């Protein structure tokens, strides 16, 4: 039996498991990306005109990304136990930097003369933020959110090591049983489904970008 055929056979016997782990990973991606976007955009907006807090928050977010993922996933177990939460916290901390970095870059990239003319016409600071600065920075911010979502798909495979579920379950069980039958098929399942999930999320976020970006600033 060729590799592909045996993989399909492996899959066809485990649709339920495939579906539930896929949903778990998707759950991580959605919850982590949304939470990180809210926090990172808020921090980016609040610090946009103040160099010190801005650079400090960027530095902290960068430090998170340098911590080895195995360590970051396990470090919170004493506090929150096993399962979803240690994984969520670790993934959340990883996802902050791309969004924060792009929020800062996007807001700094708004032409100062546009803000000046908005102020000169009598727009309040909040109106300028929500009607001018954020819409103009949005394509850049969204690009950051996309990177974070991709990052989360990949790194969430580690969640299996802290009993957090997800597609990493296939990879872990495959690795543990090598070279027994179906071990390679399990690894392939985890890798290929992660890849497909990443592609699907990427293209749906591209679509979201087109829907939420003004035609006047679309590239």
């Amino acid at each position, binding site marked *: 039996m060729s590799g592909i055929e045996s993989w399909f056979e492996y899959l066809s016997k485990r649709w339920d498991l495939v579906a539930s782990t896929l949903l778990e990973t998707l759950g991580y991606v959605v919850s982590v990306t949304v939470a990180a976007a809210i926090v990172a955009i808020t921090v980016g907006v609040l610090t946009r005109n103040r160099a010190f807090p801005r650079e400090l928050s960027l530095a902290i977010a960068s430090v998170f990304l340098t911590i080895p993922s195995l360590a970051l996933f396990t470090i919170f177990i004493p506090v929150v136990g096993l399962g979803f939460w240690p994984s969520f916290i670790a993934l959340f901390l990883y996802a902050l930097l791309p969004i924060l970095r792009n929020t800062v870059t996007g807001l700094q990239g708004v032409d100062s*003369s*546009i803000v*000046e003319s*908005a102020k*000169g016409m009598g727009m309040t600071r909040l109106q300028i933020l929500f009607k001018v600065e954020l819409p103009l920075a949005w394509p850049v911010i969204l690009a950051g959110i996309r990177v974070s979502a991709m990052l989360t798909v990949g790194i969430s495979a580690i969640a299996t090591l802290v009993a957090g579920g997800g597609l990493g379950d296939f990879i872990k069980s495959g690795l543990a049983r090598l070279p027994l039958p179906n071990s390679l098929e399990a690894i392939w399942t985890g890798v290929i489904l992660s890849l497909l999930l990443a592609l699907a999320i990427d293209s749906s976020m591209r679509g979201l970008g087109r829907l939420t970006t003004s035609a006047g600033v679309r590239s």
Partner: protein
Amino acid sequence: MNAHDLDPLHEPRALIELVNVEKTYPGAEQPAVRDLSLAVREGEILVLVGPSGCGKSTTLRLINRMIEPTSGSIIFEGADVTNTDPNKLRRQIGYVIQQIGLFPHRTIAENIGTVPRLLKWDKKKTAARVNEMLELVGMDPSIYGPRYPRELSGGQAQRVGVARALAADPDVLLMDEPFGAIDPITRDRLQNEFLRLQAELKKTIVFVTHDIDEAVKMGDRIAILREQSIIAQIDRPEVILTDPADDFVENFLGSGAILKTLTLNRVRDLDLAPVPPVLPGASRTQALAAVEESSSGVAILLDAQEHPVRWVDRRSLDNAAKPIEQAGRSVNVMLQPEDTLQDALSAMLQTSTGMSVVVDGRGRYLGCVTIESLASLLVQTQNGAA
């Protein structure tokens, strides 16, 4: 010339007043604006001009409180607005900056509707006003309204900037080097358009520029500022050009201040010389008769649309070998009534006769101007200003 120029007792009321205004930036030893008092009269274009760093932009931005004064007060339409809500004040004052600052994510129509929306006008009223504004600046609302700023040329963006500033019908317009980033030919056209617009709208305008030629052209009055925004001289342009208050003003005007008075008058102020037109299809005899009748010995050959095409004189018509449509020299340079005397002089110097053809907006022949009529108008202006 306006009535108030003749009668100083009936000065129009001041719409904006800066009273002993001072601005010192934090950390600076010297104030950027020192004890400035300035009144802007209703319906005038007051130009603030001076070398870079003299504080002219700061002064302009004090009026709509983009910059808050350190001391002194700002009076707007009779009320002290030094401590009122700056956003409310700014919605009543049009503001145009050099970079224009159109919102790239909003359509042209949405851009122009910005201040009406802030003032909570209803949609119908805003839309009608937006169309009116686009037409005012010579842009078709159905074509340009739904477009985005990146689809506009520099000149069009500038027009939209002016339309946006005028949208809520403010009494006052502040313009900070509005034509500064535009190529010279387009700038000249936009300046002329703007002056035509202002003749209709009669807004009160404060206009900042570093270019004395632009100041002379645009200003009803000019304030020449030295460092710290100290007023070196404030007066009508013809007075400043012919009677500078001190060495600073004289240096700033540069050489050829008298030549700059050429931009104060327009071709329409000149007397048209009687140069007879020759209509298309006229016989050689008719053309000769026209030349005989002309005091300058030349006539202008027109085409079917009344556009001037050729200068003809007796000698060129005597050459019977050439058809009359090819006699004489072609008319290359044409003036319009809105052109300045500076344009007129350069046009005349390009013709050997010292004359230039004047046409209306559609290119139809109006008459000719001569270097003599220009000289006599200049003498009149000089005598009038002194």
